[in-house]
């Protein structure tokens, strides 16, 4: 008898819990935001920092009651797809987003993936926020892509000019991985260096992305005796090995890149040999970070165990999407309304101190506002941590 009562009570409790759970989930309508990018393989760090930034922010929003859009609180759900840095899979990912009725997607992370998904996005009314630099994605007649970071052709000239003026750099060499992103970044970097009056002493050496010994690759580059060695489009996996090999070959000049790197990875892979390495940092520094940025870092670390400096930039895309939709709720299902709002959109930047604003930029580079405004932070690595070299803004 006692056992039967216990069973009945347990069953009732279980049914009640499920019902309550259902009620709790049903409290807020759900707004789905997509992510299509690389979360496996050598470049996994780029996409994973995107996905984890979005998941951290979404969990934070949902925990605090949802995001206010037109007076209704929405829970945010992140739908992710690993494109494995393969354009074919990126297309499949974007098609999946379309099938799920998603209108806003963050990613892809690389040039060929971002170019491949363009027709799918345009046909299905999807705005997407790539971390890829081809200008044709952002210039008319294209209008659905919004660059989620500072491009190398914006950061590169700023870095070279700074080093010319402050470090007396005159000769520069470029080395790039044999893939579309690094190669296009090398070409635009080399052109920018020449335009500034620098002598480009080497820009033809490339390497396979799975190279394990960079000594033979770097030897001819080092023999050209540059003042500055640019690792064009270098992935976080290859940067420490390239720096280490260059230093072991006796190179004492400056080394820089226009991609974001991770301090822990540099420290583990190259140690003190990486001291002085210049890279584009995440869009935050201790001086710029607001309390909300610090809380984001804490929540990210609590969720995933370790923070990724790149997320200082990657945190912004979701915030821009939500804030723009909040500014014009019709944009939730109508990307044309979103585009119309972009031209005049302005909102307080919650991740920076002072009166910094979230706003779309890119008029100078693309002829239309198709880039999120984030600070260009250039860092120098020293003894396991990044120090801010200078901060600039892109128009």
């Amino acid at each position: 008898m006692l056992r039967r009562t216990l069973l009945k009570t347990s069953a009732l409790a279980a049914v009640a819990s499920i019902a309550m759970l259902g009620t709790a989930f049903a409290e807020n309508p759900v707004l789905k935001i997509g992510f299509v990018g690389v979360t496996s393989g050598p470049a996994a760090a780029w996409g994973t920092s995107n996905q984890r930034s979005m998941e951290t922010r979404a969990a934070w929003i949902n925990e605090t009651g949802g995001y206010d859009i037109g007076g209704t609180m929405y829970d945010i759900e992140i739908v992710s797809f690993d494109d494995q840095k393969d354009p074919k899979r990126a297309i499949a990912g974007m098609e999946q987003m379309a099938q799920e009725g998603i209108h806003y997607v963050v990613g892809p992370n690389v040039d060929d993936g971002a170019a491949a998904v363009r027709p799918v996005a345009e046909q299905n009314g999807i705005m997407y926020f790539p971390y890829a630099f081809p200008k044709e994605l952002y210039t008319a007649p294209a209008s659905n892509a919004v660059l989620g970071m500072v491009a190398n052709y914006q950061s590169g000239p700023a870095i070279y000019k700074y080093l010319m003026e402050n470090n007396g750099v005159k000769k520069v060499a470029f080395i790039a991985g044999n893939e579309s992103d690094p190669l296009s970044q090398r070409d635009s970097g080399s052109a920018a260096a020449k335009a500034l009056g620098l002598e480009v002493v080497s820009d033809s050496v490339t390497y396979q992305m799975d190279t394990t010994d960079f000594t033979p690759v770097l030897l001819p580059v080092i023999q050209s005796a540059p003042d500055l060695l640019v690792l064009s489009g270098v992935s976080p996996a290859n940067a420490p090995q390239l720096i280490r090999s260059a230093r072991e070959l006796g190179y004492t000049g400056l080394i820089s890149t226009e991609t974001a790197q991770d301090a822990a990875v540099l420290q583990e892979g190259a140690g003190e040999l990486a001291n002085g390495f210049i890279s584009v940092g995440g869009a935050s520094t201790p001086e710029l970070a607001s309390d909300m940025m610090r809380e984001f870092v804490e929540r990210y670390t609590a969720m995933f165990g370790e923070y990724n400096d790149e997320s200082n930039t990657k945190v912004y895309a979701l915030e821009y999407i939500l804030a723009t939709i909040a500014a014009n709720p019709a944009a939730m299902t109508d990307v044309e309304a979103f585009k119309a709002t972009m031209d005049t959109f302005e909102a307080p930047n919650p991740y920076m101190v002072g009166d910094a604003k979230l706003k779309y930029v890119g008029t100078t580079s693309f002829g239309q506002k198709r880039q999120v405004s984030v600070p260009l932070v250039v860092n120098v690595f020293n003894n396991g941590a990044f120090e801010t070299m200078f901060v600039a803004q892109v128009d």
Partner: protein
Amino acid sequence: MEQILANGLYLGAQYALIALGLTLIFSLMNVLNFAHGQMYVFGGFVTYTVVAQWGLPFIVGLVSSAVILAVMGALIEKFLFRPVIRKSKRDESTMLLAAGIAFFLDAVILLLFGEKQRGVPKIVDGVFNWDMRLIMPYDRILIGVLAIALIVGFIALMQYTKAGRAMRALAQDRMAAQLMGVDVDRYSMIGFALGALLAGLVGGLLVTITGINLGMGGPTSIKAFMMIMIGGAGVISGAIAGGFILGMMESIGLTVLAVYGDITYLAIFASLMVFLAFRPQGLMGKPWG
């Protein structure tokens, strides 16, 4: 020239060690272990965890990689390959299983160790520089010497121990070995464990030089397959020869062909296709398998 030879020898020693484990498993069980690269990556991450995260000496990390991968290899053979080989006569069953294990290990590595590039501090500082004609960091010299010592140790094990003789007998003729009283299941398991152990050891050794990341498994497997195709699948000496030949070709190509762009592997693949057209069994393999 000295630099090219030194780079080739260093690359060849590490490649040969990678190929040895793969060819051992193939010779014993006729299994193409597509997960060999992932085992290498797993071994690298184990050493990284022990050395960089727990602060223990490098040798402890290396031994941990070897032991953990050996146990993993034994379990994979006993619970996955053995039943499949027993129930299926089709070679593609084991190939699909190996590919599945590769994907599974990729997912496990991502969950356990994350997506980032990892590395451990240099085990020896300093660079050997002979008048700019030959530059080689001391840690690479040490790793190259260790790799060659491990290859010699492996050959000695296969040549002079009871287990080595049993495995060689198995590789030559499985049925005859069984009739002569060799415990086929036991030595298949030991062989697979030894192959996985070698993958783990190379991963542990190279994490000090190249670091390790999730994406290194696939390309490592491809290079290992190239080496055993050059040397002859299932032949120990062939794997060693294949490793050193690939290392030397890579070193020469990266220096001589650098002015023409990144065509070293294009040239290597083209040469391999021509070579296999004339000698499909590789340098030391037998045409009948």
